[in-house]
């Protein structure tokens, strides 16, 4: 045996770029079991990478941590929920170009033999047809999973995606409203998962309660110190004018009836009350309870209203047995169907959602294990409303914080899964598979001006997310873009600023093209809005009066002695002109100008002479020049004859 050489991040073994790859290494030597490091640099198109480090389970059980650089001081990744797993598949969201360090230690101390196998593979990226499941992750930095509604397998991951506990999809038009619990925003998506808008709700605390009228309006519950408030948002993100204040600090689930006259509500802060209350949207007060509490059960997470106005609720018992019971009520609150799914149910995330093509069936998502932990998996059931018969049923492995909740296995098989989280929705249209991607980086500069604190708002089009953002000088925004064209970046310059764009690959800023693995930098340079023009400098000299006892003076010649021959090579100033005019009335009115050349370049002997200049009893001369040359006026000579009267 030999001592491993990859015992820290700086000496980590690079697994290369070809996935999947399986690596084996004996990590013990002379009674010591070593911690070893590997690294992988994410490639274009990578969204989620799967890691499966495993040993024989009886002696060596590898414990895995993931880090990002620098290799001299690696940082646990993701920062919000570092991934740690023992002999279990791990999935990590990745960013192309970033290097991830995989630290594998022995969870069982110094054991021998310690034979490590490490399988690394890339998550699939498949089209998600209408009807696929949409399961978001409430763990910051973890992506959205789109699951097959046939077998629960992951079709594709989407990243970045806001992390949240709640969401809703409109069944007709397909828009999705998703809670972003990290930024306390609501993000509205089109049916193809393109961002329509981000709604800032940072002034209220989102309550994980989002529902809809199933036509065009979302209902969102928000907490307060003593009251909860319900808001509405249109399918374009416009906030509704009416809000309702409920005498309860929190709401766990809300759902309006189809006529939008009442809202079914669960949730009382700090209680296990599973009562379904009825909030009258017209009178702004509680009506009689819709359904009495089911003893010992927690407030349900989901209430769904079906096409016949019946109401389906999944009750989970707040005891170790976690009994799950699903009940369907008519609009008056009378029980139509009820079914018990027995005990052994995870109480955290039993969820309901509508089915895509049958307004009178629904999907139930169950965790069929004894809580979160080893062996946890999900079961998805499509249930017919009329008799609660099962149209479809299948199971899938689930992950929490990126770590599989399956039991540890010796077989080196990696797979991917959804989180034990929410929301659980059904897509209304096909979502294409993310293809290979490139990167678009928008960089803000103010050439020649630093320290500028002005905020410059931008819009991004062509499916880039976010669709609006702001930058200050020296900052940038990075987008991951599917290979292709049609992307656009447009700044709305604040008053007083003008923007010019430079695109690193020469494409049009309104129709950016991105190739696989390419980083396209859009530099939006702002300068102070101004125009400038270059004027000639007009120069004037006006002499003292020339008179002699106010008799007529006859002027036959005026000769200006000035620097001559100073004309420019070309353009204005190549033949500099002197404009002479005069006043014969003491400086009150002036003759037309008479122009004379002061000599082109090199005409140093040029004489500047005007002749036949009339008569005056009082004469003031005016010299005006404006050509852009070096004007130096020395003196002037005149031929003048004095009259007799």
């Amino acid at each position, binding site marked *: 045996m030999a001592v491993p050489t990859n015992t820290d991040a700086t000496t980590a073994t690079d697994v290369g770029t070809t996935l999947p790859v399986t690596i084996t290494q004996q990590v013990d030597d002379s009674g010591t079991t070593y911690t070893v490091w590997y690294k992988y640099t994410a490639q274009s198109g990578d969204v989620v990478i799967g890691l499966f480090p495993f040993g024989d389970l009886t002696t060596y059980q590898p414990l895995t941590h993931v880090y990002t650089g620098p290799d001299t001081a690696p940082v646990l990744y993701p920062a919000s929920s570092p991934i740690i797993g023992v002999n279990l598949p791990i999935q990590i969201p990745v960013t192309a170009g970033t290097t991830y360090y995989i630290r594998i230690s022995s969870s069982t101390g110094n054991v021998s033999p310690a034979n490590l196998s490490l399988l690394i593979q890339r998550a699939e990226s498949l089209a998600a047809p209408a009807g696929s499941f949409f399961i978001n992750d409430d763990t910051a930095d973890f992506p959205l999973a789109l699951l097959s509604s046939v077998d629960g397998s992951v079709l594709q991951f989407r990243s970045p995606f806001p992390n949240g506990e709640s969401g809703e999809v409109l069944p007709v038009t397909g828009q999705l409203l998703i809670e972003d619990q990290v930024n306390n925003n609501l993000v509205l998506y089109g049916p193809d998962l393109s961002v329509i808008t981000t709604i800032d709700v940072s002034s209220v605390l989102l309550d994980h309660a989002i529902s809809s009228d199933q036509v065009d309006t979302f209902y969102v519950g928000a907490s307060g110190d003593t009251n909860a408030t319900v808001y509405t948002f249109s399918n374009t993100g416009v906030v509704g004018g009416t809000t309702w204040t409920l005498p309860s600090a929190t709401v766990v689930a809300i759902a309006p009836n189809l006529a939008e006259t009442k809202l079914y509500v669960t949730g009382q802060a700090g209680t296990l009350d599973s009562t379904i209350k009825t909030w009258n949207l017209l009178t702004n007060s509680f009506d009689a309870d819709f359904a009495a509490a089911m003893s010992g059960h927690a407030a349900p997470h989901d209430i769904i209203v079906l096409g016949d106005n019946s109401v389906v609720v999944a009750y989970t018992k707040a005891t170790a047995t976690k009994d799950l019971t699903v009940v369907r009520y008519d609009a008056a609150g009378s029980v139509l169907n009820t079914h018990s799914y027995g005990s052994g149910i995870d109480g955290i995330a039993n969820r309901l959602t509508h089915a895509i093509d049958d307004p009178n069936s629904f999907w139930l998502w169950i965790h069929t294990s004894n809580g979160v932990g080893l062996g946890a998996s999900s079961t998805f059931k499509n249930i017919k409303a009329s008799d609660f018969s099962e149209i479809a049923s299948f199971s899938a492995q689930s992950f929490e914080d990126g770590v599989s909740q399956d039991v540890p296995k010796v077989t080196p098989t990696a797979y991917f899964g959804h989180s034990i989280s929410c929301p659980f929705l059904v897509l209304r249209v096909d979502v294409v598979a993310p293809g290979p991607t490139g990167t678009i980086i928008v960089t803000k500069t*103010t*050439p*020649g*001006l*630093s*320290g*500028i*604190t*002005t905020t410059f708002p931008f819009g991004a089009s062509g499916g880039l997310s976010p669709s609006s953002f702001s930058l200050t000088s020296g900052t940038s925004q990075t987008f991951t873009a599917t290979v292709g064209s049609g992307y656009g970046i447009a700044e709305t310059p604040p008053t*007083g*600023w003008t923007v010019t764009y430079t695109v690193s690959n020469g494409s049009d800023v309104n129709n950016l093209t991105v190739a696989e693995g390419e980083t396209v930098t859009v530099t939006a340079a702002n*300068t*102070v809005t*101004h*125009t*400038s*023009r*270059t*004027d*000639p*400098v*007009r*120069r*004037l*000299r*006006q*002499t*003292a*009066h*020339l008179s002699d006892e106010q008799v007529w003076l006859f002027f036959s*010649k*005026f*000769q*200006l*002695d000035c620097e001559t021959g100073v004309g420019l090579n070309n353009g204005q*100033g190549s033949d500099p002109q002197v404009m002479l005019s005069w*006043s014969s009335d*003491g*400086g*009150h009115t002036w003759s037309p100008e008479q122009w004379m050349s002061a000599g082109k370049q090199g005409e140093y002997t040029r004489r500047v002479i005007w002749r036949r200049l009339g008569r005056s009893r*009082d004469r*003031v*001369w*005016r*010299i005006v020049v*404006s*050509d*852009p*040359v*070096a*004007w*130096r*006026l*020395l*003196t*002037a*000579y*005149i*031929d*003048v004859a004095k009259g007799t009267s």
Partner: protein
Amino acid sequence: MEVLALVGPSNTLISPNADVEETINFYVEGTDPGTGKVKAYLVGTPGLVKWLVLPDSPVRGLFEQDGRAFAVAGSSFFELFADQSATFYGTVAEDDNLATFASNGSAGHQLAITSGGVFYIFDLIANTLTAVTIGIEPVTMVEFMDGYFLVNKTDSRTFAFSALEDGTSWDPLDVDERSEASDNIVAMIRSHREIWLLGSQTSEVWYDQGDALNPFAPIQGVFIEQGCVAAFTAQRIDNSIMWAGINTDGSGVIWKANGYTPQRVSDHSVELGMQTYGFAGARAWVYQDDGHLFYVLLLPYAPWAFCYDVSNGTWTKRASWDATHCVWIPPRAQCHIYAFGKHLVGDRSNGAIYEQSITIYTEEVVSA
């Protein structure tokens, strides 16, 4: 052939029949000490080329010391660099007045600024701008002398002085009032190691008497029966100061101190112009080119600036030409520094800073 008296200053008198001499965008240069073909000739004034446009306007003040240059434009404070770039360091209060500057250099690494009635200290090492409360706000001007920053309170007889070499420390007791006359201080300007307090009718001069607790006192026997009509016309020039005067008899004379005695340097032509257009918003700036020391007086309502050449005592005019309306309009500049080996001037109506040079024969004009 007769020789015509072509070369001369502006001298447009109240009676055009007496004299209508006008000299715009030329200045007079003598040929002595040589034996020139003529005793004096006219030289074209410098042109302008755009140097930098700041994102705030107008340019309300420029300052340079020891290789670092600064500007206040609108409500923004910038450092300027030789490569025609600038760094924004913070906002300042803004009014129609100019900003004023003074620095204690390497003794305290501070640049003091007054702007919009507020006093600021810019730390020249940390590059941070901080508003400092003196206790006599609003203030008009700051000067530096003998380790103290001095700041005068607007429309009062009061001025305050800082702790030694520290413009962030102001003792409420370190406040003086001019006492030899009762009129308010309009402008405060240091000349040599003396502080001139130009009042609204009279003026007095204070000096550092060396008393650590009460360093400043009026110079005995010095009292000037002439005040200042517009604060920002007061400028150091030619080892002296010049300002636009006013007293109980009237206003509109440009004075230059000869020792402690003001000497009238304006002529009737200039005084007629000043009385015609008024002193509201008047400001002056000073520069030296080829040995000509110019005092440029900008009156916002006059179509030109009046320009005094200390080297030969002549007044000429500076103006831009509005080719559309065929009229003279005031020149662009309202403040000046000599920095990076260049004359830089700040635009009176936008954020442009221009390089001014006698080798530039055109005027590049920025419009916001």
